[in-house]
């Protein structure tokens, strides 16, 4: 490297500025009276936060924050705002009817909670060291070079298994929101609305060139995840972002909710994860217990399935719930 190194003072100044900026965007996002502005500020907040994660020495989290926390959540929020606008939803101004009293009644406890939290966390004395040493000692047995990936897909794979199921469950729950007429699997359930934006030649030109590149980046994130920051979730978020781009530029229709291949792809991640765990048992080991010689291959191939399957789930979430069959009005709830 060069002779230019950051002095401690410069790092502190940088961190301080970053923290103030993050807090400011969060404050603006929480208090802005305009919904769209609040959402955009939230995305900016997420991107700044990704920088903070880098400063904290957590590049994996930084990638996830940028791709999932800011990127994908931002896309979801904006999609929903668009939907609410199209439906002419009544949006009372956010400050109307909010007395000062109420603001204090909510704000004061929140501030106290934050203050107490800061106090406890700052005065925290570590009594027993964490497991970083153990991770380092046993990382070789997983064949994976990135300690975070080793924790996620081997040491604590039970957490990750359930987390993959949570993503699938979000899709299942979202799809079950269609008012039920002749069945969730009936041919009359219509896919979520496709956006029909005015044709934008420049945007289309750009998206056509960006999409393959972004797919490449996603694949790279999956591949590199075993040895460097990255992994299946980040890759899936990039794939879903490509879909969102195609969607806003009018190049891609919404996924058909009844297409069986698509549903199979969505459940593939969870099913593969569970089956891998059971297969280890059948081989005389513990549930999810990967043998050392195979660990690397199993983790990388499982991550490939996860990346594809999670991407399908996230795409479905971006597109939203299917619409009810035409002509049948949503039935009102029975008591």
């Amino acid at each position, binding site marked *: 490297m060069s002779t230019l190194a950051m002095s401690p003072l410069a790092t502190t100044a940088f961190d301080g500025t970053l923290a103030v900026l993050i807090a400011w965007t969060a404050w603006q996002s929480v208090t802005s009276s305009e919904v769209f502005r609040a959402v955009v500020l939230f995305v900016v907040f997420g991107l700044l936060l990704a920088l903070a994660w880098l400063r904290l020495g957590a590049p994996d989290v930084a990638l996830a924050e940028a791709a999932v926390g800011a990127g994908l959540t931002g896309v979801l929020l904006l999609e929903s705002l668009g939907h609410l606008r199209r439906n002419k939803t009544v949006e009372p101004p956010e400050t109307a009817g909010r007395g000062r009293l109420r603001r204090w009644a909510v704000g004061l406890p929140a501030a106290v909670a934050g203050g*107490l*939290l800061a106090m*406890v*966390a700052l005065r*925290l*004395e*570590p*009594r*027993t*060291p*964490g*497991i970083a040493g*153990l*991770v380092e000692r*046993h990382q070789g047995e997983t064949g994976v070079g990135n300690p975070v990936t080793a924790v996620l897909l*081997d*040491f*604590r*794979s*039970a*957490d990750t298994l*359930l*987390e993959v*199921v*949570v993503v*699938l*469950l*979000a899709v*299942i*729950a979202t*799809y*079950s*929101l269609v*008012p*039920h007429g*002749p*069945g*969730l*699997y*009936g041919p009359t359930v219509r896919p979520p609305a496709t956006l029909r934006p005015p044709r934008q030649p420049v945007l289309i030109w750009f998206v056509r060139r960006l999409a393959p590149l972004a797919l490449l980046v996603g694949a790279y994130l999956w591949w590199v995840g075993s040895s460097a920051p990255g992994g299946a979730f980040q890759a899936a978020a990039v794939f879903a972002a490509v879909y969102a781009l195609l969607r806003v530029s009018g190049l891609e229709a919404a996924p058909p909710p009844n297409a*069986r291949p698509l*549903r199979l792809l*969505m*459940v593939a991640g*969870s099913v593969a994860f*569970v*089956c891998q*765990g*059971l297969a280890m*048992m059948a081989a005389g*080991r*513990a*549930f*999810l*217990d*990967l043998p050392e010689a195979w660990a690397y291959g199993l983790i990388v191939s499982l991550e490939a399935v996860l990346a594809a399957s999670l991407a399908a789930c996230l795409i479905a979430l971006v597109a939203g719930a299917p619409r009810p069959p035409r002509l049948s009005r949503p*039935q009102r*709830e*029975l*008591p």
Partner: protein
Amino acid sequence: MSLAPQVLPWAAALALALPLLAGAACFVVGGRTAAALALGVAVLSSAAGLVLAAGVADGGVQRLALGGWAPPLGIAWRIDGVAALAVALTGFIFAAVLVHAEKSLDLLRGEGLSEAFRPLALVLLGGLNALYMANDVFNLYVTLELVTLAAVGMVALAGDSAAALRYLLVGVIGALAYMLGCGLLYAAFGTLDLDLLAGRVQPGGTAGAALALMIVGVMAKGALFPLHGWLPPAHGSAVAPASALLSGVVAKGGFYVLLRLWLDVFPATGAAPAAAQILGTLGALAVLWGSLQAIRQTRLKVLLAYSTVAQLGYLMVSLPLIATAAGHASGLAGALHLMASHACAKAAMFLAAGSLIATRGHDCLADLKGAAHDHPMTAFTLGLAGMTLMGLPPSGGFIAKWLLLDASLRSGQWWWAAVILGGSLLAGVYVFLAVSWSMSRPPGEPSDSQPPPLPRRLEFAALALALVAMALGLVSAERIP
């Protein structure tokens, strides 16, 4: 009887894997195959619980290192008698509810609803089984999130998005508090495993704050007073089989986690006695407030939902009893017994309510006149399960309350006994209200109006649950390891 050593790990893994795989399958295929699969898996899950219970009776509490990595590096499951029986009972309740749901949901709104119900219920079952066995605070967080998301999805099935959203928001905020506690515990004590934490936690601000955060989190998720506000609208508006699962089983999930923290980690902080009195007081308020609200309701399902708030209050009242040496054993046994018997009884009552809704199209108490005449078995189910809520002998609720009374007198805390007795009296009033309407004859009888048909299996599913709630009065929970 002695089990082969491999049987227990298989039973535990399958209790998680089968519901998840079946849930995934039911998302891809529908129809009769899926219905049979769902029911079969619920029964198998229950059987797995029985196998686990046999294994525990045989070889004591079992710890399974997942992924082959022992804590603190990896995650372990701990399978004790409580977890094993919880798996068994939950599987049974799910089976009964699925039998009911296949018919009642379709009577309500055509084919689609039961198809949407199945995958949600199965993933919920898998999540609950993982919750019972988890022995790692963060793993518990993930299972809690899984359970909450599935439960919110079930509430939303009825179309009341506002109630579902409120549930979701409270659940997320509770989860945040809980996760914050996990992070603090790890930073201070270097592990997330409950057994290891029990040995490492020392009194002090960090442990106290972490546990306070986690307890507030699970109280929000478990609708424990005063964070119960989301429960009555959510459980009251959900379709009846969903309410049966939510009120019967899911509502206990929060308290189950609270109890695990309470028994393993809390004693080491030195704050247990003070916290116990606070939580007990909140529980007493829940009993009073929930019961009084239940009495005021005009709809059967909302009445039952408020009754759940009250019954969860008893569980919190058990905490100050468990915290004393004299009341520990019977207090704990009473709480566990109450969880089990209330789970069956409340599920039975919601299913019975669902049967009435399926034929009458509503559950307004004032218009339930003549229900007992038309559907005697369903009315009988309501009454039988109501006995457990009141704590009348020989129901499971009676044993539970007896144990709790015993614990409060033994530990010299008579005021909790007063709460328990007073709550039972109020429970008597609202159960009477629920049942008496159906018993009364409609004016202008006898008419030639044919009672609307009610499929047999709806009535039997509810009755089976009520009978189990009653049968729990014949066993004692004191011997569970």
